[in-house]
């Protein structure tokens, strides 16, 4: 297991540009999107003289009064998030195959070529997995609501609604994410069709238990790094602009590290996929039809 994790780490170190690219896209988009918030707040607060006071600490009374004027800008910002979310989804789908393509067989293949070759199918796979994720979420939430209502007590409702249901929901989504990763790997490494990728992806963790352990290892690291920017906000209160920029810089360091983890995670996925690919190729050497992928091999 360790060698696959090391392979992922090595891949991230070797392709620093990929991590920088993933990080940069998020940063630029987020900064541009929040610019209207800056202008709206600047217009409302800067001339009042309360700016420094409000930077020192939260004042509910002033914030509610600010909210009256600030709300339209915030709603405008939030209103854009649906298409930004969609855009980020598309970017994630295509950039993942781009990265996997770049990491495949440790060849220095071009990221953008990967997007060009596999992007279309990657979007198809992403759409199917997204639908599966929605179906799973709807099903779990429905059962959760029914179960919480059926318990009829505060204790039952608490554990069902706030502990069991979210845990089952998130665990299921994580498993789907794992399946999706290997479906994408198959797209790149084996040239699978969308249908083949989805079917093999869904089966992957059941056939290769080690994949789950590898996923959990990177998931834990990714989760810790995702929490760190928020912890920094608690640990380093920004009372002035200098501290605010310093904290922001530290957060960006964490996000950059998170981007490296993304590349490393995909590196591990591809390394493990290739390992299985090689193993299967040895086992059934000579029986393969050139051009057919791993799935076809397994079915013979």
């Amino acid at each position, binding site marked *: 297991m360790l060698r696959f994790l090391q392979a992922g780490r090595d891949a991230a170190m070797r392709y620093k540009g990929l991590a920088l690219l993933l990080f940069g896209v*998020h*940063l630029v*988009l*987020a*900064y541009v*999107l*929040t*610019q209207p*918030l*800056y*202008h709206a*707040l*600047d217009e409302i*607060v*800067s*001339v*009042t*003289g*309360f*700016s*420094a006071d*409000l*930077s020192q*600490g*939260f004042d*509910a*009374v002033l914030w*509610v*009064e*600010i909210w009256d004027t600030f709300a339209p800008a915030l709603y405008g*910002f939030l209103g854009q*998030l649906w298409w930004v979310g969609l855009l*980020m*989804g*598309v970017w*994630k*789908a295509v950039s993942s195959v781009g990265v996997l393509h770049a990491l495949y067989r440790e060849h220095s293949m071009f990221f953008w070529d990967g997007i060009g070759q596999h992007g279309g199918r990657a979007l198809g796979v992403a759409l199917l997995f*997204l639908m599966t994720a929605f179906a799973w979420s709807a099903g779990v939430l429905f059962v959760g609501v029914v179960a919480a209502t059926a318990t*009829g*007590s*505060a*204790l039952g409702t*608490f554990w069902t609604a706030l502990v069991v249901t979210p845990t089952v929901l998130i665990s299921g*989504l*994580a498993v789907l*994410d794992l399946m999706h990763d290997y479906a994408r790997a198959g797209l790149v490494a084996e040239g699978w069709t969308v249908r083949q990728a989805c079917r093999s992806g869904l089966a992957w963790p059941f056939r290769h238990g080690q994949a789950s352990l590898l996923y959990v290892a990177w998931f834990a690291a*990714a989760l810790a790094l*995702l929490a760190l*920017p*928020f912890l920094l*906000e*608690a640990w380093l209160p*920004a009372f*002035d*602009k200098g501290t*605010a920029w310093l904290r*922001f810089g530290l957060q*960006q360091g964490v*996000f950059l590290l*998170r981007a490296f983890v993304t590349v490393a995670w995909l590196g591990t996925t591809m390394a493990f996929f290739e390992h299985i690919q090689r193993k299967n190729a040895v086992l059934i050497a000579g029986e393969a039809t050139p051009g057919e992928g791993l799935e076809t091999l397994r079915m013979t």
Partner: protein
Amino acid sequence: MLSASRRHMLQAVSYSLVLLACALPLAAQSVVTTTADAPFSDRRVSYVMDVTLNPETRGLAGTQRITWRNPDRVPVQTLQFHLYLNAFKPGSTFMNESGGRHRGFVASSDDPWGGTEITSMVWDDADGQVDLTDAIRFIQTTDDNPDDETVVEVQLPRAVAPGETIALDVAFAATLPEVVARTGYAVTGLGNPFFLVAQWFPKLGVYEIPGQRYIPLDAERGAWSTHQFHAATEFYADFGTYEVTMRVPEAYVVGATGVEVASETSGGMTSVTYRADDVHDFAWTASPDYLVLTDTWGHVEIKLLLFPYHEAQAERHFEATKIGLEYMDRWVGEYPYSTLTVVDAVGGAGGMEYPTFFTVGTIYRHPAWSRLLEIITVHEFVHQYFQGLIASNEAEEAWLDEGITSYLEMRIMDEAYGPGSMVDVPGLRISDGAYQRLSYTQSLPGRGTIVTHAWEHPYASDFGKLAYNKPAVVLKTLESYLGWDVMEQVLKTYYNRWRFRHPTTRDFIAVAEEVAQQDLRWFFDQFLYDDVVVDYRVVSVATRRPGDEPSGIASTVLLQRLGDGVFPQTLRVTYDDGTTEDRTWDGEAEWHRLTFGGRVTDAYLDPDNHVWLDTDRLNNRRTLRPDDTLARKIQLKSTAWLQAAFVAIAGLF
């Protein structure tokens, strides 16, 4: 949490007291229910009651012996009683006004209704017993709803002479409603029954004599004040003594107003007797699920009835209760009773006050960062004073109990728990004071006046603002105007003068003016009796070079009164060298221009945040040196959050 040894010791003491009480005839008991040997109140009424709870039918079968002394200087021919539980019958005024909903709680069972019926009433007169049952008739004292049966009047065959005390023997049968508003039955988190038995017995109204409250001193005679039960009204009653025996199934735990003086179990039923002196109401609770935890504060034994699944929050309840006792003792006066029962209630039964007994409400695993539990506990404890001891008419002048209580709750919470007294999350601390202020300023502050009969508010939704939040903000502003030392004396004087009596708004104002030694009509007329809004703003700060200014530079600050309310203002200006100067303004004119020698960079109205009535504080300040620190800080924070969101969203694709 209490240590086990301390709890055992307290239990042993409690058991010893109970055994001692059982060994003595009830009539001859010397139970300590208050801190005084002599009566605190004039005890115009007394109730000795015996009631049996049938959990299966939610039924109460009770008898009561009521005594009443005619306090008037003329004979009184009628009696009036509240039958509060009839509010939970279809067609009642309460139901018509509330639509069966109270504070967001609504009944969900097939048969949520409740009610009560007097099955017999006998006057135990010196000349013999007189059956009054047929003389009972429903009356409507505040509206013309013939279906409202919350008040009855009894025509007596002879008038009660001035100063005469009469005794009535009453039998009644009641059905408790599903808990929606304060009283009734519900199911605990363990699926077992819970009963809050409040407003449950036929209860005399208050006969007000000339000179009492708003009855003119020279009036020919007094009058009954017995309001129907409206959606927004609470209660009003005379002080007296209560001795109540409650019979419940053996497995049930009982808590009640006053002190437990006897307990006996036989035939699967437990009889528990409580006694309370100098109180104006009696409520009790019963459930098989209660844990009984005790603690003491000074002379007060605190009994906490808590559901097992909330046991982890016991210390929070005790701490908040003791904080309430501590601060009220210091700021207002002594808590005169020997017991205090804190009840973990279900749904709409939570957050209600009765003498020496109040209900709180919490949720399973209530997070520590939310102080709602503490706020409710402190609020209901403060009611022990403002309504429990100073028994204003809650139906007519709700602000005197809810408003003063909200003010003191806010003050205690903010003092004891600091800036996060309501929500205490790093970076997001909200105080109880801020909550009260916003609840007023953000809820159409110009609509409605505080001194309004609770059932006469044109908009029912205004009741909370006008009875709770605005009075809290008005009193906080008054405190800032007079200074805390003076305000503290106002509270102490009001308490000492009016405890165990029924004061009015007029009486509160008289105390405030007497203690402050100034005419405060301008304040109370605007903010208690009118709907004016206070809002001042700094319109502009300008610098110029007039010829007659020695320094060569002068600044003008233009102020505007935007609201119709008037309140004296302080303006603080900051010069470009960092020095400051304060000027005062009576706030009366609509526009006010001030001139300063030197370059003013910042003008700030009410810089010490004294005028909580100001509905828009953001416009109180203007600077010539714009500062984008906040805007940039928020943008950078939003950027980081958005980046995190992108990473999280990516997991779905």
